[in-house]
């Protein structure tokens, strides 16, 4: 994914601000990356290079940490982040069916963003609400006991209309 010059500038600026409050110890690497992600929603390459310079380590070290941990996103997320729980309880209660529904409705795969950048889709391992399985988390709000119909309903609440009788399997609904 290509970042615009504007996005790069914002990323650098924000990263710079964050780095000011951290000493140059390697142990700060993960907290810094977390801060960057919290501010920007993701960790762009330019930010990683900046962090490497600050800590005095090769950029590849930063890159290897950012890619090792599941939490870090390397591309900007959608405006709404949809995370489908794939923990044990959710899986046994049909979590994969729910994930398929989201994929079908959004027309994207896991770890992708819709072309209009409205939605991104991720899987998470257990958010600790197993008693409400299957669970989908949208923008930090936990939705329990999700069904395929509920998926449509939730999308509807974000203004996405699912035209009846038109969509074919795997086809994006809103954004063409």
């Amino acid at each position: 994914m290509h970042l615009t010059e504007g996005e790069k500038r914002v990323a650098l600026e924000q990263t710079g601000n964050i780095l000011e409050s951290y000493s140059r110890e390697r142990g700060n690497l993960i907290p810094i990356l977390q801060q960057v992600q919290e501010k920007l929603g993701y960790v762009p390459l330019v930010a990683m290079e900046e962090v490497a310079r600050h800590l005095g380590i090769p950029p590849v070290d930063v890159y290897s940490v950012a890619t090792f941990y599941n939490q870090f996103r390397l591309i900007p997320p959608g405006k709404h982040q949809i995370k489908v729980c794939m923990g044990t309880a959710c899986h046994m209660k049909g979590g994969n069916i729910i994930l398929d529904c989201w994929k079908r409705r959004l027309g994207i795969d896991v770890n992708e963003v819709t072309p209009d950048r409205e939605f991104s889709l991720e899987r998470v391992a257990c958010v600790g609400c197993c008693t409400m399985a299957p669970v989908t988390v949208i923008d930090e709000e936990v939705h329990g006991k999700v069904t395929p119909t509920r998926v449509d309903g939730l999308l509807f609440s974000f203004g996405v209309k699912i035209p009846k009788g038109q969509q074919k399997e795997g086809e994006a609904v809103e954004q063409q």
Partner: protein
Amino acid sequence: MNSSSIVAETFAKLQQKSRTAWQSLRDRPLILVGTATCGRAAGALEILKVIKEELEKHGIDAQVLEVGCMGHCYAEPLVTVYKPGFPPISYGYVTEGIAGRLVQDFLGGDDPCLEFALAALETNDMVPALTDFPRGMIEKPIILDKCGLIDPEQIEHYIALGGYAAQARALTREPEWVVEEIKASGLRGRGGAGFPTGRKWETCRLAPGEKKYVICNADEGDPGAFMDRAILESNPHEVLEGLAIAAYAVGARQGYFYIRAEYPLAVERVKKAIEQARQAGLLGTNILGSGFSFDVDVFQGSGAFVCGEETALIASMEGEPGLPRHRPPFPATAGLRGRPTVINNVKTLAYVPHIIERGAQWFRETGTAGSPGTAVFALAGKVINTGLAEVPMGTTLRQLVYDVGSGIPKGKSFKAVQIGGPSGGCLPEAALDMPIDFDSLSQAGAMMGSGGMVILDEDDCMVEIARFFLDFTQKESCGKCTMCRLGTRQMLDILEAITKGQGKPGDIELLLELAEDVKAGSLCGLGKTAPNPVLSTIRYFRDEYEAHIKERRCPALMCQELIAYYILPEKCERSCDACVGSCPVEAIYTNEDRVKVIDQQKCVKCASCLEACPPQYKAVVKLSPPELVAERGRKV
């Protein structure tokens, strides 16, 4: 005055102040709303809002508190009402309507709305109490005792109910006494392996070095476990006190909470707890005037399961990828930044104040000789009362599933219980009467693990669950050991083929062989235990594997590729349209006999029609193997 009496006196003042604050809550009606993550997912924040609005509207003077999780997650949102003249009563499945009635009729009038009551919190002659139910007789809350009854964000509540007294007590004794007491209690680590906590502390205490650390492991990565989250959200001070006592015992001046990224509310509440403890003089320099100094920070994990392993956890705190290291040296002698470090699980630390307060002997009175104390389980899956339960070690699985969990929903039959997450195993019906403790579980091929317990019924496929766990461990393998990285991949490929009906004769034997190799060739617990779910399901449910391989059939009707949805023409009510509207891909059409038919080419197997078909018809069924649909079609 010597330092012991300074500590005692300072703490007594703190206690007095807290008790006054706690007592003042009882002057007027008090409403507790459970707003841990489970409650929030069920809508507790809306209930909280309604209650506040209603109180305002009716001009009723009552106090409203947000509390944590009482363990009855199945009945969320949960509200508890204390009204002078009545026993404290908990209400379950609270809707906005019920919340309104509680305010108007119970607080405004004198009708306790018993039709919505779950149970009373104390015995009385009006409402059955929690302890009157079979569940209440089996449960023995030690570390969950205050969860859901106090506001986790108010340190006074915890102190008023006896909190931090153990820390104050420990500070008046020698650190060696604390270590001895924990050793004598027989406390074993609740993070999975059950290592004796006292011995770990002693090693760290005796390790040479000025600087030492203590870390609370709150990474809780097992997908299906939520005990640690619930404790941190409901009573963070208990764990913080345990950590401070550990620090005093081993001689550490700095501690950390390592909390999973997926638990934002736990992070927030722990941070608040640390701040409050600092202000109360229970953390920081010269704690309670004892001369002992200790402080705590929070480190957030970044979503890697392997970082629950202690050496990987340390690596990630040092800014490295979370790769486990060889042990020995164990962290207790060379851990974080090379210094002696004690790492304990959330629950392990939560027991510590109770043991210091009431004594090692008291702790040993509960549980079994080899595993003293209680075990906290998170019940999920196909069980009626999902939630948290704390029971003495040695309780049987049957008691847990049927008495605590109230059995299997929808009249289905029990098939297995998956214990210990990705490192654990599946135990069949025959194991239900086994008393659970660290040793009996590993003998049966499972593991205590973290305490996650997922109950499976006849609709759950055992090959699929083995595949699920292996898929998880395979993705989470850090990649350092070849066997763990590639052996699990190969096992997963075989399992995937089996669940798709492409299994071959000899696959089971190959899986068993690979399992041994992966166990032997892996450095850390992740790889060493990854094959367990496969091994235990083959051991107890081999016939299911064989049905998949030989007949291309999934007996539990779960494996997507081996089933088809089918509408029984003789049962379809013809004029009913329920399934048609429910189908997200318009796969259901009406044939010339006005019977509904599923277009198998279009069907994405989402189960919506099965749910939608009214229970009096039950016309939608699953068939396995899918070829049965064509066969039926010919017969008609």
